[in-house]
């Protein structure tokens, strides 16, 4: 019995290790190539060989740093503005009754069902008419609008779950509704606000079609990397170094927040 269970454990371990190996191979090869010059690259890519070409990272940084800065600016503005507006709206929907509340709320969340593919063309025409195409505003304004839908939906549920006594007590003490939102609702929602912020940053980092259409001159990381890959089809070392550098901000963000992001996914999924 003990033997078979040990054998079963070893079999499980082998299977998982095999899967892990194949998951890691592309990233390992990326790091390996990022330290090679062309001759070393043609020779072998499975592991780095000396001399390591550290200057690839200098070249890679020079190529991708403008994209990283562009993306960080957009991500920061979109995250702050959309969460500010959506948290206040969600708070109002969670706490108060007012005429038209239900239709307004449904008008908002029905947008969750509308795929981006329906809106792409009119959004482009609208951005063109407003003179936004090619600028960061084309990204910021449309992202702020679309991110708010999901954020209001999730935050409203969260705010509704907060104990009502807290607000009632503050009410007795004469705290205004804005004050209650700012000093009670927001501080109690740090973790969900953090999770939503990460989701928005990741979304901005990964989105491809809209920036390609609307902001080709203002290159975000996704556009920039695809562009570099087409332009520099033989300088593999600096290119892979660029991929690695462009991945770093998200990796850092996740390594700081992974623990509760994982919990957030797990609990959110169970609720859903």
């Amino acid at each position, binding site marked *: 019995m003990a033997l078979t269970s040990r054998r079963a*454990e070893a079999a*499980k*371990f082998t*299977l*998982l290790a095999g*899967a*892990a190996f*194949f*998951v*890691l191979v*592309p990233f390992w*090869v990326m790091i390996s190539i990022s330290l090679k010059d062309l001759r070393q690259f*043609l020779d072998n*890519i499975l592991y780095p060989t000396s001399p390591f070409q550290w200057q690839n990272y200098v070249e890679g940084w020079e190529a991708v740093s403008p994209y990283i800065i562009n993306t960080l600016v957009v991500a920061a503005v979109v995250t702050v503005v959309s969460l500010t*507006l*959506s948290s*206040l*709206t969600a708070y109002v929907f969670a*706490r108060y*009754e*007012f005429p038209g509340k239900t239709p307004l709320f449904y008008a*908002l969340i029905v*947008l969750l*069902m*509308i*795929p*981006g*593919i*329906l*809106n*792409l*063309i*009119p959004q*482009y*025409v*609208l951005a063109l008419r407003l003179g936004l195409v090619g600028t960061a505003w084309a990204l910021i*304004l449309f992202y*702020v*609008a*679309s991110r708010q*839908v999901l954020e209001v939906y999730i935050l409203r549920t969260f705010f509704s779950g907060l104990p009502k006594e807290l*607000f*009632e007590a503050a009410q007795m003490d004469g705290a205004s509704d804005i004050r209650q939102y700012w000093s009670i609702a927001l501080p109690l929602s740090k973790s969900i606000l953090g999770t939503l912020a990460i989701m928005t940053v990741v979304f901005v*980092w*990964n989105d*491809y*079609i809209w920036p390609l259409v609307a902001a080709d001159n203002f290159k975000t990381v*996704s556009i920039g990397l*695809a562009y570099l890959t087409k332009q520099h089809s033989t300088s*593999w070392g600096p290119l892979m170094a660029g*991929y690695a550098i462009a*991945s770093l901000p998200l990796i850092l963000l996740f390594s700081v927040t*992974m623990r509760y992001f*994982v919990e957030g*996914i*797990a*609990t959110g*999924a*169970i609720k*859903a």
Partner: protein
Amino acid sequence: MDSAAHGRTSGDGRMPWYYGARLYVYILPTFVFIGIFAYYPSLSAIYHSFFNWNGSNIKDYVGLANFRRIFLNDRDLLVASWHMLLFVSANLVLQIPSILLAVVLYHLRNKRVQYWFRMVFVIPMVVPGMVGMLLWMFIYNPQVGLLNRALAGLGIIPSPFDGPTWLADTRLAMPSLMFMGFPYINPIALLIYLAGLERIPRDLNDSALIDGASAWQRLVRVELPMILGQVKLMLILGIIGGVQDYGRVLIMTGGGPSDATTVPGLIMYNTAFRYAQMGYASAIGVVMFLVILGLTVLNMRYFRTHEAS
């Protein structure tokens, strides 16, 4: 659904009129944003799907002509829809590795090792999607790519240069796109399944063990039912994603070689931004929207009845 108004009433039980008005002011910015940048485009798409429209000066009402063309008279779109079905099927089949891996990982006794494996499997989520795709483009590169180097190393082909050209080969391009991403572990799905499995009550597993249930029986009778809801969610997301996704095709093959990998989304994209037929492209968008909406509604119905039973 919430309890009634939080008694924000003044002494005589009536609120001053401006009290409610303040609430509308708070939610106004959100509605201004979605009104201009979400609602207007959606309505504009539906409206313009009945027009011959180039996005600026040409705009002629054509009734249902765009839709007739979509369903009766567009061979490219037909080919693209077949590719879309292939992508959707691949998406569905490729859910299986995540499920199986989650179950195996759940059964690993050593919790430290389990933790480390979980970290490794989550890495692809942490790396930007574009980097993952570009790395797969490199893997498929016919001259210097990893795949042909590996095949040459194993002696299957004489040298990397003699290997298949993958994404550039008319017959191989579709399967190459469908089956990229080996070993097909979806980090979010894996985390969700693990969370579901962790909720299996201990005594349920113990009693299954005492009954002498085999691993297979436990999988079918205890574990899969436990995560059935999550699996269904992932399947429906896989279908919807497969219907509307064209980023992968746009980046990796541009729909080529020739039209070997086109999908409806890409046809819409090219119709709009290459040929400036914004009206026809809007109509394609509307049809895809209706398909996705249908799938979503079907899914909600299905979930409801399941929960009720």
